């Protein structure tokens, strides 16, 4: 069912002809955003002000912050790896693995993700710069920047443009057609979460798309894919080499334990980052948009889409740090290039703006948000109920058709 995000007809208080944003939400949550064009532009101007305030006060203490986090992360990683040289010892194994897991999370989230966003480019330090940074992940920074910064952040939650929505393999909205294979969606999501860094690499590489299209690709597309795949291969070799060869070998008789510890740390990091990220755009109340809704979009309309398309996580300072401040997903999506340590301070102002315009500031504790997101994964793995038919009979029919060799797709729009 397609919802209209903004009203199409509304009279403004000053009597001017209301130009309205032709935004459409595809969720079945009832949208409360009934804003005139002027109101949307006002919101945009207010957000610009919030950004300008941070830029004007950005300086030495911010620089000290990121350098401090990087230093702490490196000490933690180095000392955890030293402890793991003796990983046959149970205490060393537990302490080292825990330390390494935290180090890897910090490296990916508060440091890598944010540096690659260019949040720290203003320092003009080539060591902490989006053009030079490489991170502890299988996907090369260059490819991730393209799919994440360019595609996801520009086309946030636009169906068909933002592949982060279900990573192109999941059903994330009722308006998406259901098919039988989606029954496996919860399972695939779990696999994806466990091996998230590989999932991201495949995703940045557009691996499945490339495999599917095969010979249908243009020579340039094939060349790009070949080049990118080679880069992923090199990165993969270094990453695997480090965690499963070099460090284990350095720990001599503890080799197997060290390799196991590294594997656990990688999986812990994967599960954690996946959980944080799934909370960003998946929980109930977050809206998705149609392609046509962003044609000729203004900056203010883009802001509004970020506001409605993101969700925050509430929690302690430590949780914010470990999430790379993606717990302030709304603020991050509004201002992806502001230093992450400043999101907490602008959050109350952003929230007040939401309230002023009657918009829903989606936010909740991590367990609740994760549960909601997973609930959605489960719910949407099943077809929608249709008048007079149960889900089971729809599934039954699909199974029957599949058995007869006629896979079918259902469009889940209720007959009206």
């Amino acid at each position, binding site marked *: 069912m397609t919802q209209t995000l903004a009203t199409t007809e509304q009279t403004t208080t000053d009597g001017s002809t209301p130009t309205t944003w032709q935004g459409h939400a595809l969720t079945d949550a009832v949208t409360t955003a009934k804003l005139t064009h002027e109101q949307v532009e006002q919101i945009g101007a207010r957000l*610009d002000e919030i950004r300008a305030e941070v830029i004007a006060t950005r*300086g030495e203490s911010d620089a000290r912050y990121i350098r401090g986090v990087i230093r702490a992360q*490196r000490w933690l990683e180095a000392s955890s790896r030293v402890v793991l040289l003796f990983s046959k010892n149970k205490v060393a194994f537990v302490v080292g693995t825990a330390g390494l897991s935290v180090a890897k999370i910090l490296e990916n989230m508060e440091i890598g993700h944010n540096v690659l966003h260019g949040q720290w480019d203003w320092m003009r330090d080539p060591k902490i710069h989006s*053009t030079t940074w*490489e991170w502890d992940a299988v996907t090369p920074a260059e490819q991730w920047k393209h799919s994440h910064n360019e595609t996801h*952040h520009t086309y946030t939650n636009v169906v068909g443009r933002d592949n982060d929505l279900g990573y192109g393999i999941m059903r994330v909205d009722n308006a998406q057609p259901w098919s039988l294979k989606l029954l496996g969606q919860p399972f695939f999501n779990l696999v994806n979460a466990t091996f998230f860094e590989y999932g991201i690499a495949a995703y940045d590489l557009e691996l499945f798309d490339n495999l599917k299209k095969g010979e249908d690709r243009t020579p340039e597309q094939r060349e790009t894919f070949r080049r990118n795949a080679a880069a992923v291969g090199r990165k993969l070799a270094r990453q695997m080499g480090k965690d499963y060869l070099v460090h284990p070998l350095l720990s001599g008789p503890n080799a197997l334990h060290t390799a196991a510890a590294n594997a656990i740390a990688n999986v812990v990091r994967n599960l954690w980052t996946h959980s944080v990220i799934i909370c960003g755009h998946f929980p109930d109340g977050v809206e998705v948009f149609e392609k046509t809704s962003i044609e000729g979009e203004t900056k203010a309309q883009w802001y509004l889409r970020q506001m409605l398309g993101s969700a925050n996580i509430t929690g302690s300072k430590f949780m914010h740090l470990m999430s790379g401040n993606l717990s302030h997903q709304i603020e991050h999506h509004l201002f*992806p290039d502001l230093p992450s340590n400043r999101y907490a301070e602008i959050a109350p102002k952003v929230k007040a703006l939401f309230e002023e315009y009657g918009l829903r500031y989606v936010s909740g504790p991590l367990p609740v948000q994760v549960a909601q997101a997973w609930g959605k994964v489960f719910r949407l793995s099943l077809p929608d109920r249709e008048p007079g038919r149960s889900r089971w009979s729809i599934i039954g029919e699909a199974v029957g058709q599949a058995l007869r060799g006629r896979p079918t797709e259902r469009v889940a729009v209720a007959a009206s």
Partner: protein
Amino acid sequence: MTSRSAALSRLIGRAAWGLGALVATPVLPDDYVALVNPLQARDVLRARVLAKMAEGVGVATLVLRPSRSWTTHRPGQYLRIGVDIAGVRHWRAYSVTSPPGARELTITVKAKGDGLVSTHLVERARPGDVIMLDLATGDFVLPETLPDKLLFLTAGSGITPVMAMLRAYRFGDVVVLHSARSADDVIFGDELRSAAAEGQLVLLERHTDAQGRLDPTELDDLVPDWRERETYACGPAELLAGLEAHFEAAGVADRLHVERFQTEAAAVGEGGTARFVRSGVEVETDGATTLLQAGEDAGVLLKSGCRMGICFSCVTKLTAGSVRDLRTGETTTVHDEPIHIQTCVSASAGACQLDA
């Protein structure tokens, strides 16, 4: 050590470093070395400020201990240093004032009224600070065989490269003709005067507040044999231009060697000429058109993504001139080091030059 064992230890060193690279990936072993001691890391040059000495009003000498991979300099050369001010790195060039070969080196900085970096170094730099460094460079140096008769013609902080030469060499016949606003404003005044008293050099001070600026035609009176001297000059652009014309007219242009401190950056304005160096394209822009747009309109292939300032795909090096961020109105000007800018939200502010 025999050459074979030297080669062997080099090989072992390289193997250890290679292993270190595998251990530390995706960062460098040097990044971990720098955690412990920034001066031990070899991938970037840094220096620690060991001491700061006042040299007079608004002038300070910084004693620096460079990274162990620092090589050396020749007297008269300069080096670029990078300091973080309000979290932002700024690069400027300063003459090395110490003789080569020592473990420490010194630079002497004069705080200019509006000079962000010089003011910072003179007023706020503290022992213990770590700054960035670059190798020494510049061809304002003396030849292998020292000339018999020398004239150093300097003004203001133009004395700094010459000081390195005076400290490094013993000269036979050398005249230093130095201009400063007053006797108190002469950088290294005490050192120069005592060297003169000991007969190591002839010092001619020109105090411009009282005596006015030096005119090249006065050389005949001040240094009658100036035509026979190899002359090394360093100071403001007008002084150097005057000297060049004067030496040229006297037919001894080849005796004059000058050092120019950074050429003045073009004035900051609205719009202006944007040069895309690698594409060899030059366009006139107004103050409202982004460099991305202007470049694309002129057929330059530029990287871009969101075109609204959020994705950083369009980041390109500004190699000279100034740009204005159209969102904040803030301008960015290149001094001694290119700066990465986002072309999709930047417009030319005066002339600018991009590495694209």
